[in-house]
């Protein structure tokens, strides 16, 4: 069976989820030789409106680019979580910022849910709230293992301004470490 993986990054405008999605797609295309698409959905509200980026990675050309069978769902906002969780497959990986999203108990039974204060960590531990998306990218890479972390980071390097590379590298690595810790807590590797 050919490799096919669908992701959705949901949040509100300004959090950087569109860019995070683009980085994942670019890593797959440029550094893993795969087909990938990223299609954003947003509203006219430039900051604060519900947004999502759907990312599909495949060994084969992709025609329908909206994620309809989601393997990995990331949400950084409660309203958006509720709005866009519907296409997530049973048993899929769900990552939320638990400072911003409350995952209902029944959802925790359905999905492999990981919770972490992503935005707060970016702000206080990395040192800049704008790195929350790259922190998410690092966590996504470690939680999904769909691509090598090195290749994902190469895509980060391609996208972030050189002046912010060091900061984003810190965010990315921290994301990976946090994800490892969360997996270890669940007894996974």
């Amino acid at each position, binding site marked *: 069976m050919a490799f096919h993986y669908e992701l959705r990054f949901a949040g509100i405008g300004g959090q950087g989820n569109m860019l995070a999605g*683009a980085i994942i*797609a*670019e890593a797959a*295309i*440029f550094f893993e030789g795969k*087909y*990938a*698409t*990223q*299609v*954003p*959905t*947003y*509203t*006219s509200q430039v900051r604060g409106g519900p947004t999502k980026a759907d990312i599909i990675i495949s060994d084969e050309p*992709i*025609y*329908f*680019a*909206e994620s*309809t069978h989601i393997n990995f769902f990331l949400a950084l906002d409660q309203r958006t979580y509720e709005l866009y969780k519907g296409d997530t497959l049973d048993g899929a990986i769900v990552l939320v910022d638990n400072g911003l999203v409350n995952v209902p108990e029944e959802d925790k039974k359905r999905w492999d849910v990981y919770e972490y204060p992503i935005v707060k960590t970016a702000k206080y531990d990395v040192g800049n709230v704008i790195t929350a998306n790259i922190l998410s990218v690092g966590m996504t890479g470690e939680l999904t293992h769909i691509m090598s972390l090195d290749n994902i980071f190469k895509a980060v390097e391609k996208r972030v301004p050189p002046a912010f590379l060091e900061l984003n590298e810190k965010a990315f690595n921290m994301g990976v470490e946090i994800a490892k810790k969360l997996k270890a807590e669940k007894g996974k590797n």
Partner: protein
Amino acid sequence: MSKAQIMNGNELISEAALVAGCRFYSGYPITPSSEIPEHLSKRMPEVGGVFIQFEDEIASAMAAVGASYAGYKSMTASSGPGISLKQEAIGLACMMELPLVVVNVMRGGPSTGLPTRVSQADVMQARWGTHGDHMIIAVAPETLLETYTETIRAFNMAEKYRTPVYILTDAVLAHLNGRVELPDPSELEIIDRTQPSVSPEEFNPYDVEKFGVVPPLPNKENFPKYRFHMTGLNKDKTGFPTVNKEAVEADEERMITKITDNIKDIESFEYYKMDDADLVVFAYGTNAAAARVAIDEARESGIKVGMFRPITLWPFPEKQVAELGKTFNKTIVTEINLGQMLYEVERVTQGNTEISTVLQASGVPIRPQQILDKIKEVS
């Protein structure tokens, strides 16, 4: 050697326009087409072309018409509300017989509609948006690569037939970032308007008797040498107004037949898994991608279904669709609107096939599952 790149539909239209020789872009900001002027504001000066953001949609369309008159390959882009405003300029380009490429990144409506969402609800506007009898060419790409190649074809047809050509995309294709391997520009056929073979004194911009149905038109290098008149009034071969009824009638008819008589050259369509099919889906643009996925899945469960996908929407592929009507007992028409090309399919198949529909105007794409459900229901 082509190389994998990541671009979205709007960027691909912009780059393809440059490769096609477009050196004039005028526009006005509107979602979801704004990445086209954003990209070209950077790129056009690099290639020595003209980029202007105008005060409104009307001015930007009129400027593109003016640039075409002055010999430049020109383009303007917008979305439904802006395209409504551009209609008078599109009509002028039809009447003056000036090449023009108009991009409509469709978002639905009427009126402001859903600015950031997907739609195919402007396909009839493309056909009939401007007033008066006229013919239009419109293409609707499905994929990123096709967005690129159809943009080049749009410029070629505009130049070859001296007519406005629409590129109809939508918010999904416009913002879809994906892998594309672009053809080498040297492998692409680029068509330029035919140049006058006569002296400036002998040149008439509509000299059909001498030059055939699509007379030559000076390009940007020749424009300063050739003085001629153009008007939005019904004109004679010299470009000056006429009310002579025979001349007007002949001109009106020729402006349509110069396109319809060349349908073989202009038409473009795809038959997908049709060889053994006993059920056909009619779909176009990005919605055809959903149909394609649905058809693949239906075939896995043994349903022999195929797709007819027009790429050139206008002129409508009457011959092919009429044939479908005769061949298939059942046809599914799907489009992201409440039924527009449906009218054409109904008109052309003349009741020979039982038509069912998957239509949606909610601002979200039709999903493969919806089309699959319909395929299962009718098969």
